[in-house]
């Protein structure tokens, strides 16, 4: 497919396995705390490292409250096939801009990478239709992981099921399913 501006060409393919890429925003799960560095599982071949100083307003005395099993939304600082991937929760100007520890509750699940790209497209119908249902919060990681949080467990699970099924549903089937839900 050819790009709109700048003459960019890319190959669009379906894959489930994520390969860390510099600049990508992903959801990582903290697996270990090794001194000053956290080890995160990002779904790639290797675990990524995250320094405790890579958070907004973090100093040696003011450490972020990160426990094993926490979810982190961050971006890759270093990601190539020769080195261990490194993540940060801070952008180039030192602000967090939405990155960092993802809060309590919510539900994390995995989808294929192609669906994430579809959901993140500028005018995604799926997201627009879901946003009409109920208030909820959504975090999409480029590594195929989605985190959803709504007011009740039932609402959260409904959103999760729709997003998972979106991979194989046509637009009409999806609209039918949503119509049934909004009718309830």
């Amino acid at each position, binding site marked *: 497919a050819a790009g709109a501006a700048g003459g960019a060409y890319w190959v669009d393919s379906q894959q489930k396995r994520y390969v860390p890429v510099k600049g990508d925003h992903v959801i990582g799960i903290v697996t270990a705390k090794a001194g000053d560095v956290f080890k995160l599982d990002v779904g790639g071949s290797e675990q990524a490292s995250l320094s405790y100083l890579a958070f907004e307003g973090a100093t040696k005395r003011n450490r972020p409250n990160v426990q094993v099993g926490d979810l982190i939304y961050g971006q890759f600082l270093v990601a190539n096939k020769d080195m261990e991937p490194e993540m940060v929760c801070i952008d180039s100007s030192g602000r967090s801009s939405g990155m960092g520890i993802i809060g309590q509750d919510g539900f994390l699940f995995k989808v294929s990478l192609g669906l994430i*790209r579809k959901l993140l497209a500028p005018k995604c119908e799926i997201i627009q239709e879901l946003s009409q249902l109920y208030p909820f919060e959504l*975090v*999409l*990681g480029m590594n195929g992981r989605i985190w959803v949080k709504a007011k009740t467990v039932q609402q959260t699970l409904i959103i999760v099921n729709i997003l998972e099924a979106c991979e194989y549903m046509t637009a009409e089937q999806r609209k039918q399913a949503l119509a049934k839900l909004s009718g309830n």
Partner: protein
Amino acid sequence: MAGEVKTKLSKNLLRMKFMQRGLDSQTKKLLEEEEKKIISEEHWYLDLPDLKEKESFIIEERSFMPCEDLLYGRMSFKGFNPEIEKLMIQMNSKCKEEEIEVDDKMEADVSDEEMARRYETLVGTIGKKFLRKRDQRVLQDEDEDGNSNTRPSKKAKKKFLKPQD
């Protein structure tokens, strides 16, 4: 006599590090290649023509973000997380400044006519502030002439009309 003779710098002097800082990268590359060509008898070399590096116009990009103009990954709907909703507007507006400009034209609190009326009076009054003193006096004279013309017509308008029995 003094002006004609120019001091020539020796080759060794030119090859020194401090003389080479001012040169750009291309001339440096040429000089390096020339140095490599100076081969002594002991060095073994391949008797092949030189290959020059071609400038590649292809940039490799491994991320999908710039290709498809993807949105920011954190989203919140119907006011679930107000901070994230603010972030959404901020991050997505960086990518789509053109679209937002089009949308602004649609909503207007004040109608165009009112805006034009207000603007007319505003420009005059604030414009006078920045005029030089000479121009201000000229304006004053013009105003007085203009007022004297309009006064009789204003007086005519202000006459009270008696209700007819």
